[in-house]
């Protein structure tokens, strides 16, 4: 049974500053969310598999971690937080009048291929604005995403906007079969320029082709929107993104905004604006979100919704490491002097002093030596004195 002293692949122990670095990000994010009127909800660690499978969750079955409830029903460890929160919003009608701002600070669980260094346990902080449609709701969620990354202290970051409707409209002009649309979507998502060209070759006559061919390259600053209009003509999706950009720029957020019209992931799930946040130092997006107007309805209460989630550890890894406090003082006290000793510990910066559990001063001095402390502070009948180690 030797293996039982190791943790399973994809899980880990976190010690000291590793915990602090995670907590710091969570604290900064949730403070912002509460400030903006979002209320915290927490949902079960395990829920029925069908909740995610039948509501069109984007998480593949093989990436969910399976467990069973006491009756033998098939459950999974929460693979994402938006689906359970949509369930809450749809079913707790009295407690959740719409529109509603909700936030969460909880872990999602996803299994990874072996030996890829990924974690099965991903702490996320996120918000959902449920029961609100339109530009103001989208703008609010996007500025909250930008402020979320800013509040974490990320030195260089950007939030990239796309729109599910743009790809749908262009794909519609080609009149392809469903699986061909899916193949094209995959090529655009993977920015597979060469294969996309080959795929579009038989459709050269169609004017939508030029735009689709360039779609995976349509990312960058606001000039992307002009290029898109030149290629595809006026479209509601690009017009909408331009309106959002004007609004965001007027509020001073323009510098953080980029566009990627080739952002076509989870195209059946997202119904409007989609976005991702990138931070220098992280090898993948650390924030992901968008508008999903059909999910809540799947649980029996129609409600348009938008939101995002932040990968807490991914953000934490890009921030400067926290330096642990250095222990300077061991506090030794004789019976009857606990109150004074505690006052001395509580009056110093956290982690720089601690009570000695030793009975004799000599043992406390040895302890101080072992732990590298500079001094032992003694409380006894003679009052308070410092003994250098």
């Amino acid at each position, binding site marked *: 049974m030797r293996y039982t002293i190791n943790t399973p692949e994809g899980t880990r122990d976190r010690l000291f500053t590793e915990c602090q670095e995670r907590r710091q990000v969570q604290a900064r994010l949730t403070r912002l969310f509460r400030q903006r009127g979002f209320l915290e909800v927490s949902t079960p660690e395990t829920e029925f598999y069908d909740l995610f499978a039948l509501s069109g969750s984007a998480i593949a079955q093989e990436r969910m971690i399976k467990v069973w409830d006491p009756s033998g029903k098939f459950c999974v460890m929460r693979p994402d937080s938006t689906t359970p929160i949509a369930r809450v919003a749809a079913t707790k009608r009295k407690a959740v009048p719409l529109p509603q701002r909700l936030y969460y600070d909880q872990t999602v669980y996803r299994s990874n291929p072996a030996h890829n*260094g990924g974690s099965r346990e991903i702490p996320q902080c996120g918000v959902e604005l449920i029961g609100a449609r339109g530009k103001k709701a989208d703008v609010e969620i996007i500025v909250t995403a930008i402020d979320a990354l800013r509040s974490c202290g990320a030195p260089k970051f950007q939030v990239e906007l796309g729109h599910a409707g743009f790809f749908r409209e262009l794909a519609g002009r080609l009149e392809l079969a469903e699986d061909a649309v899916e193949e094209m979507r995959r090529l655009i998502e993977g920015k597979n*320029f060469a*294969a996309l060209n080959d795929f579009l070759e038989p459709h050269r006559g169609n004017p939508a082709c030029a735009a689709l061919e360039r779609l995976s390259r349509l990312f960058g600053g606001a000039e992307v929107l002009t290029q898109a209009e030149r290629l595809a003509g006026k479209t509601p999706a690009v017009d909408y993104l331009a309106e959002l950009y004007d609004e965001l720029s007027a509020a001073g957020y323009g510098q953080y905004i980029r566009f990627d019209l080739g952002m076509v992931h989870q195209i059946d799930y997202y119904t409007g604006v989609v976005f991702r946040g*990138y931070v220098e130092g992280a*090898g*993948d997006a650390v924030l992901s979100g968008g508008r999903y107007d059909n999910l809540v309805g799947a649980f029996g209460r129609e409600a348009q919704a938008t939101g995002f989630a932040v990968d807490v550890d991914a953000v934490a890894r890009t921030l400067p490491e926290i330096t642990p406090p250095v222990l300077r003082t061991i506090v030794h006290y004789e019976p009857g002097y606990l109150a004074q000793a505690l006052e001395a510990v509580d009056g110093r910066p956290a982690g720089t002093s601690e009570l000695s559990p030793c009975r004799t001063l000599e043992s406390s001095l040895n302890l101080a030596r072992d732990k590298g402390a500079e001094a032992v502070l003694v409380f006894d009948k003679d009052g308070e004195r410092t003994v250098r180690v």
Partner: protein
Amino acid sequence: MSERLKIAITKGRLLDKSVELFEAAGLDCAPIRDPGRRLVHSLPNYPLDAVLAKAPDVITYVEHGVCDMGIVGKDTILEKGGSFYEVLDLGFGRCRFALAVRQGSDFYGTYKTRRIASKYPEVTRTFFEKKGMDVDIIKIEGSVELAPILNLTDAIVDIVETGATLKANGLVPIEDVAQVSARLIVNTASMKLYKAEIEDFIARCEAELERREHD
């Protein structure tokens, strides 16, 4: 240009061809040609650092974002998968995946579950999954041709360049599984954060590839 990009290049034949391409595109690759004991090779006239790695490791480094770009064969991409942008077909390292059987055997003419040997179990699985066919896949690490000769399997799925090895062992390719060539891949975050730098590098490669096409 502010940022120095890092690229992982697959060692071996793809490396020679990559260096040829870079040099034709105006990049001084002397540090790669004469690596000495260094592991990271900084190009003197372009903001690019190169590391050399085995093919699957190229994908690993790019996926984790410790390298911004990579050059790797489509065979490895198909087998290993992963999340990155596959932006250019570099045109060299061309070969194909083929399904090959013993000369004279009728692979599809039976209801029995076929057995396939391959170094590429994922490529094999996807190929037969698309056909809606159940097969047993046995992973072989060395010369795959041995498996049907020893009667372990009915067929193989493997990389074919000239077909000479197959022929010498009494095997014939009966179907193409996929075309393979070297690809330029890019980390998803790097593509966004260092757009200008990466687009410049892609454009230089593209220009050279286009020139070759017209030669």
